[in-house]
């Protein structure tokens, strides 16, 4: 972590000080200015054509004012002092009706905490090179097999500069770069159409494409679709499920990640409430949320409340050791924040969110895990998921899966959801591999806001999960 004078802050510190003071003009104890300037480029290819290149600019500030249990919030796309003061006054009025005193705020130097290194800033790269990637993906996917009938690919990059200042004296800045490539493939056969999908995303610049082969990405997606052409209906009922490394982090994201967010715990809307220090998972499981994990999709220098990102162990050897915290929930409990206060944009209020959430390595040989499973399902790729944190019931989709018969991976299965209950599934993890890998870049949705997150795990087995197939 380094402390430096800001070369060119998005808003001058003396303006921030006056805006923060205006935020407390009705007597509120806390005010905060969040300034964001984001530039993005995206390009889409579909049906063999580069359909459109899009340039975007989103710039503005959100002002938060807290008075007791009440938060007032206003945002503006006008970053002039006049615009910011107007928003601060609106937020102050929203937080409290009535008069208050003048509260001076003094800000020091800008804290810059950077966890990512960008070698080639994507906004400096010719758009033609970005479009070229899409054409390579299209060609590589179509070359896999004559059954590939459609390919769509998307490229996206963004550079998001943020500045956070609050009346407690916090003044932090970060520059967050993200680069993404995704591909969807349709294959057709006698039994209809099937789809394949893969993606690549990191908090680094255009050098991502020197370090990763985009053709390989396309081929993986294409093969997934082709394989599924001969898939049989997935089974129904509960059985052992082996989840391939780097594909099942979403299981933990849903099975316990959301339930460990302090805002949900605080309202007793989590099945993990009041379980601190208790055994909540198999003793094989150590779960970490780590915003500092360089280059991973959920990596951030500071969170959206200006707090430096950090590595937090949530479950240690099966025992619940901590929840995730933002400013408000930490303040209420009189404890430190954990770097998990995040928001989609300056137009949104921050809340407790995950960053990169993953399970550490176990000891098993991943091949042995399959060999030790007589009958079950092997999931090679998971889709999204959804959880009810209060009951703990969650679902997640399997987009590439196979039968396990007599310890061997056999026939491909059609798509479906799996369903389980968080605490039960965590306790049912009976084999954990030694082959940890991070998974695909994800977007986590909560209360209408989407934020980039990462997840990961080694190959593992759940003793019993319900497969939502159609076969008896």
């Amino acid at each position, binding site marked *: 972590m380094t402390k430096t004078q800001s070369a060119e802050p998005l808003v001058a510190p003396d303006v921030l000080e006056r805006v923060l003071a205006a935020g407390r003009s009705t007597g509120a104890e806390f005010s905060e200015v969040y300034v964001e300037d984001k530039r993005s480029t995206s390009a889409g290819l579909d049906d*063999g054509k580069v359909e459109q*290149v899009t340039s975007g600019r989103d710039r503005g500030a959100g002002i938060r004012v807290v008075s007791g249990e009440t938060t007032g*919030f206003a*945002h503006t796309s006008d970053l002039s002092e006049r615009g910011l003061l107007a928003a601060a006054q609106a937020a102050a009025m929203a937080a409290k009706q009535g008069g208050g005193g003048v509260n001076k705020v003094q800000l020091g130097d800008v804290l810059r905490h950077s966890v990512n290194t960008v070698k080639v800033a994507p906004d400096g790269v010719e758009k033609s090179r970005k479009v070229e990637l899409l054409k390579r993906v299209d060609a590589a996917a179509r070359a896999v097999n004559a059954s590939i009938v459609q390919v769509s690919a998307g490229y996206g990059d963004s550079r998001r500069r943020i500045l956070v200042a609050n009346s407690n004296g916090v003044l932090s800045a970060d520059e967050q770069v993200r680069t993404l490539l995704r591909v969807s493939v349709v294959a057709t056969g006698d039994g209809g*159409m099937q789809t394949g999908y893969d993606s690549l995303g990191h908090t680094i610049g255009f050098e991502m494409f020197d370090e990763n082969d985009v053709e390989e990405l396309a081929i993986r997606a294409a093969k997934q679709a082709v394989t599924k052409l001969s898939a049989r209906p997935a089974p*129904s009922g509960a059985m052992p499920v082996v989840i391939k490394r780097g594909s099942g982090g979403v299981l933990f994201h849903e099975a316990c990640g959301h339930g460990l967010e302090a805002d949900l715990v605080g309202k007793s809307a989590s099945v993990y409430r009041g379980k601190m220090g208790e055994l909540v998972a198999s003793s094989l499981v150590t779960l970490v949320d780590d915003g500092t994990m360089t280059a991973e999709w959920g990596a951030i220098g500071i969170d959206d409340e200006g707090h430096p990102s950090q590595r937090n162990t949530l479950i240690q050897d099966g025992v619940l050791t901590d929840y995730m915290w933002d400013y408000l929930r930490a303040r209420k409990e009189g404890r430190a924040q954990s770097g998990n206060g995040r928001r989609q944009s300056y*137009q949104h209020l921050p809340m407790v969110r995950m960053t990169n959430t993953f399970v550490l390595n176990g000891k098993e040989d991943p091949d042995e895990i399959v060999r030790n499973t007589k009958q079950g399902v092997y999931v090679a790729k998971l889709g999204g998921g959804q959880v009810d944190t209060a009951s703990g019931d969650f679902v997640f989709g399997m987009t590439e899966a196979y039968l396990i018969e007599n310890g061997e991976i056999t026939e491909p299965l059609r*798509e479906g*959801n799996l369903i389980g209950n968080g605490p039960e599934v965590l306790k049912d993890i009976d084999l954990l591999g030694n082959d940890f890998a991070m998974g695909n870049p994800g977007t986590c949705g909560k209360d209408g806001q989407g934020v980039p997150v990462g997840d990961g795990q080694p190959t593992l087995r759940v003793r019993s999960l319900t497969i939502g197939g159609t076969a008896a």
Partner: protein
Amino acid sequence: MTVGVPDLQKLADSVVEQAKSGEQIEAYVSRGGETSVRVYEGELEHFVSAQSEGVGIRIIKDGRTGFAYAGTLEPSAIAEVLAEARDNIQFGTVDQWAGLAEPDGVQQIPQKFWDEELASYPTDKKIEITKELEKLTLAADSRVRSEQSNYEDGWGETAVSTTTGIRESGRGNSCYVSVATLADDGDEAQTGFGFSVGDSPKEFDLQKAAREAADRATRLLGATKPASKKVTIVLDPYVTSQFVSILSSALNGENLAKGRSLFADRLNEQVADARFTLVDDPTNKLAYTATDIDGEGLAARRNVLIENGVLKMFVHSSYSARRMNTKSTGNATRGGFAGGPGVGCLAMQVQPGTKTQAELIASIDDGVLIQDVAGMHSGVNTISGDFSTGASGIVITNGTLGAPIREFTIASTLQKMLLNIVDLGKDIDWLPMRAVGLSLVISDVMMSGS
């Protein structure tokens, strides 16, 4: 649109006037605001008051398309967006069908989207309503706790102008309340929600929202995981609405053109049971997503998509229509200034049956009333048709409702489910979603549990 917004229209016009020779330009400008009130345990948790604006510019030249947007209407930013969109043209592939919509002479059906009473509704009343909703919810059942009670309203003004002669602008506002609940029984907790929508707060039915939120949370207490078997399911109106919405993707003319519709080559064939008739009708003012124009500025219209089970048509924007050698059906969609138009159904409506939900249930020997589903985004593939979602509901035995069940999935394929529709309710519910709700009975669905 019926009520114009002159200054935004002028702004859009001023962009379009800068078209150079051979360029087609579309300018989409909008601004809006929102109020969001959240109450928890009788206290105001947050109050959000916010305004935003932006511009999206699409330029087409020699069959290539470029696009750019910015979240501001400052003149210098608009000039930058225009330049960026122009710069982006060169990277597109020539597409012979690329182009903007052209006025097609179809008349708009005027509707009312602006409510003066809502526009001037006092802030303290909004907070009062939110507190009242929480209070009513807690009073509905002693086992119920509050997670949050919300009031939301928003207003928006948009204008679109094109070099092809489209000039449309309008404004609208809307509001709703919602409440999220928890019900406890020992260690077990279940969740529920309720909501009410109106042109203005005076139309809210707070009692009904509170009752639903309490019922949804409590009715699953003590629920168990069922055994796996084939069953007949009754989808609650709220679930049917989600089921019908996903059909939009298969009826999308652009997906058809690009080989992604499971209805390809099925025009005029029986794709659903004869009892099933599906209409897209944004001109019906009862629909939550009713509109007078589509995302390209063409008049919205009533389209019969599936009639007595027979596939009658796909929906089109001007682009997909040109590709398929037909005319736009007024079905361009638009998510705001940050993107160009897409294609989709706008307000889907299913022709109701003749029975109440209770009558439908009475006719089933062995089934499940599905009250909620989870993972529609992760377990349903609209291209292959594979359908699998998490579910919770109540067992139906010999025509009567029994014990609650949870943590199971229901699975089939979209193709089979449409053909296996056995009956429809008359209980039309105009939910705040893209498709109407009613009770829908589907046979031969695999329930997967223990």
